[in-house]
């Protein structure tokens, strides 16, 4: 049994639940058989991948769903061997180049070149058979699609390597780039692609999707509860579906005021923030460090921790202080991206916050005393 998220994932452009205008445009785009490189961007859980798969299906039919996993190896200039796994069908190949870390440039160069060039040969070979064989080489088969995910975490080097390759092999391969935000994609690439923005679904749209899903499952979902799930998911459809399914397992039939299960790391993070607010001392800092380590060990990305902390901390302090803390968080998150170990920066942020907060409390106290006398 698969998860609802996979089970009810729309598999054609017609069946998409929201952004219908965009879907119509995309369909027109592929119907003329040819399209430019695409850059699909939007927050997570907004349906970028779904749209890509729908596009592929629209182009090639159901053949694209027959996937196989391939392992490709590359050799860097420094003779280091790299293994990258790709997901491919006969028509497309999907790679996450950031798996290769700092060697992503090698992967991009080698992979695209081999894909683009080998495919050229293949279609030429098919054409040769024309005399004896009936050639049914459809137009769309002439190029192969390369789907690159998480383009925003590519190094600048690798992105530069993409530039010319994109133009040169236009005839044999098309790229679909997928990322969360275009800020980290260099302008040279952005100007070579057709950007497709996929905004997160609104709360109402999520509610509709949830209702539709539950109906298909034969469940009854109270409107109030659906609303709460949608709000709670922070406009992330995948998350909303997962929450809904989790709630279904926990308790069915649903009740209006059923508790929504939060991931335990979130609760843990909230508890950590509460502890910081609670007491500001070196001892508490030490305890908090332990908790931060615990989060990092469980692979919670450090920027998510930072944002979560900020959200909890700001909801517990005064107006002016909020701005100051936000600016602090921004500065430390930046140094975190540049640095090697994220724990230093997280801890520095916590320590700094404690200092500011304590000073603020003491000042408040002194003022209070002054008022008193």
């Amino acid at each position, binding site marked *: 049994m698969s998860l609802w998220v996979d089970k009810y994932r729309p598999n054609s452009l017609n069946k998409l639940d929201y952004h219908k205008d965009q879907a119509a*445009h995309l369909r*027109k*785009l592929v119907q*003329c*058989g*040819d*399209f*430019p490189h695409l850059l699909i*961007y*939007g*927050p997570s859980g*907004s349906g970028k991948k779904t749209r890509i798969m729908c596009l592929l299906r629209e182009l090639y039919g159901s053949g694209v769903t027959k996937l196989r996993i391939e392992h490709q190896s590359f050799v860097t*200039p420094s003779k280091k061997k790299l293994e990258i796994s790709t997901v491919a069908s006969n028509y497309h190949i999907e790679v996450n180049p950031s798996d290769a870390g700092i060697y992503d440039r090698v992967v991009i*160069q080698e992979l695209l070149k081999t894909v683009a060039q080998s495919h050229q040969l293949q279609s030429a070979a098919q054409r040769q058979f024309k005399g004896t064989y*009936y*050639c*049914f080489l*459809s*137009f769309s088969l*002439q*190029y192969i699609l390369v789907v690159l995910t998480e383009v925003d975490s590519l190094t600048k*080097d690798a992105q*530069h*390597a*993409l*530039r*010319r390759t994109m*133009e*040169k092999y*236009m*005839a044999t391969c098309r790229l679909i780039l997928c990322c969360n*935000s*275009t*800020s*980290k994609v260099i302008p*040279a690439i952005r*100007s*070579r692609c*057709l*950007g497709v*923005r*996929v*905004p*997160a679904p609104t709360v109402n749209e999520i509610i509709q999707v949830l209702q539709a899903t539950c109906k298909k499952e034969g469940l009854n979902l109270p409107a109030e509860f659906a609303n709460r799930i949608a709000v709670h998911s922070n*406009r992330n459809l995948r998350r909303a579906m997962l929450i809904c399914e989790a709630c279904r397992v926990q308790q069915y039939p649903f009740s209006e005021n059923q508790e929504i299960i939060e991931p335990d790391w979130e609760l843990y993070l909230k508890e950590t923030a509460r502890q910081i607010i609670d007491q500001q001392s070196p001892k508490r800092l030490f305890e908090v460090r332990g908790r931060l380590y615990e989060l990092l060990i469980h692979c919670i990305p450090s*920027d998510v921790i*930072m*944002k979560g902390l*900020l959200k909890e901390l700001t909801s517990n302090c005064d*107006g002016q202080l*909020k*701005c100051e803390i*936000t*600016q602090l*968080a*921004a*500065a430390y*998150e*930046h140094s975190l*991206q540049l640095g090697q170990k994220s724990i230093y920066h997280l801890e520095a942020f916590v320590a700094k916050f404690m200092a500011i907060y304590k000073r603020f409390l003491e000042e408040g106290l002194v003022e209070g005393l002054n008022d008193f006398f």
Partner: protein
Amino acid sequence: MQAFLKGSSLSKNDGETSTKQKPSSEDKKRLEPWVEKYRPKCVDDVAYQEEVVAVLKKSLKDLELPNLLFYGPPGTGKTSTILAISKELFGDMYKTRILELNASDERGISVVREKVKTFAQLSASGVRPDGRPCPPFKIVILDEADSMTSAAQAALRRTMEKETRSTRFCLICNYVSRIIEPITSRCAKFRFKPLSNDILEKRLQEICKNEGLKFNETAMKAVLETSEGDMRKAITYLQSAGRLKPDEIINAEDICEIAGVVPEDIITELMKVCNNNSYEKLESAVQNIILEGYSATQVMNQLHDTIVTSDDLKDSQKSVICERLAVCDKRLMDGADEYLQIMDLATVIMAQMCNAS
């Protein structure tokens, strides 16, 4: 595909095959991005870069060329110019006389030492196979040279001098400051300026007519505004818009969507929220921008425009905000989180609007 399914008898389908193959060759032409299709074919076609064109035309006459260094913002015709001139110089010997290397090729110090050197050492004769004269040198084009390591650039120095008899180098880059001094002093430097709007518009109109695109006035204006003198960007926008709406009239909103421009009312809304002095409202507004999928750099660019032209802020306030804007922009380039950076900037704006006055 359909023909394959229904046609088990080959002879019957033969006629169909040939007719079916024809559109596919036409399609192949259409496959070409317009950027390549409308690349200038000869030096005269290069728009707006008079000085460069004048120098190059002279060299066409004399069959002589200095080492060249082209620099300027993207989409101003640097690569096009050198490709055009080398086509005119060499004609059909183009393939053997040109070595083109760009950032997509491996271009470390070892490549400079081996590939470039061996190519440079080949001698080139001054006559073509058919007896006509041709320039007695080869050209090495190093595109995107600013992404070469300085070690690799240093390795070029001596090669450039030693092989002047038979090889010319043409370096192309966006930022001349990233090319090491010894190289720049060995080249004739040419700056490519951003194209003016009239030139852009003229060229775009031509393309539209050629391709049969329907465009209204405001859309053209939007293209000119968003492309900022970058011909490649402008043409790509045109083509994308044409693909998305093949038979309809293209309007300004389509262009803005393709270009990823944030709608003006979202920016004004953000400024209004900043004026409200409420952290909670600001938080949800910024969250909303991120969820809508707008890119933070674009938001910051547009915020910058609004702030600089704003009448409500004093100069001292503007300067404080702009300073922070610069900091945040740098952080974004370093890969910092978008939400936090916009929040950072927005809180500064809020403080300036509400407290400093």
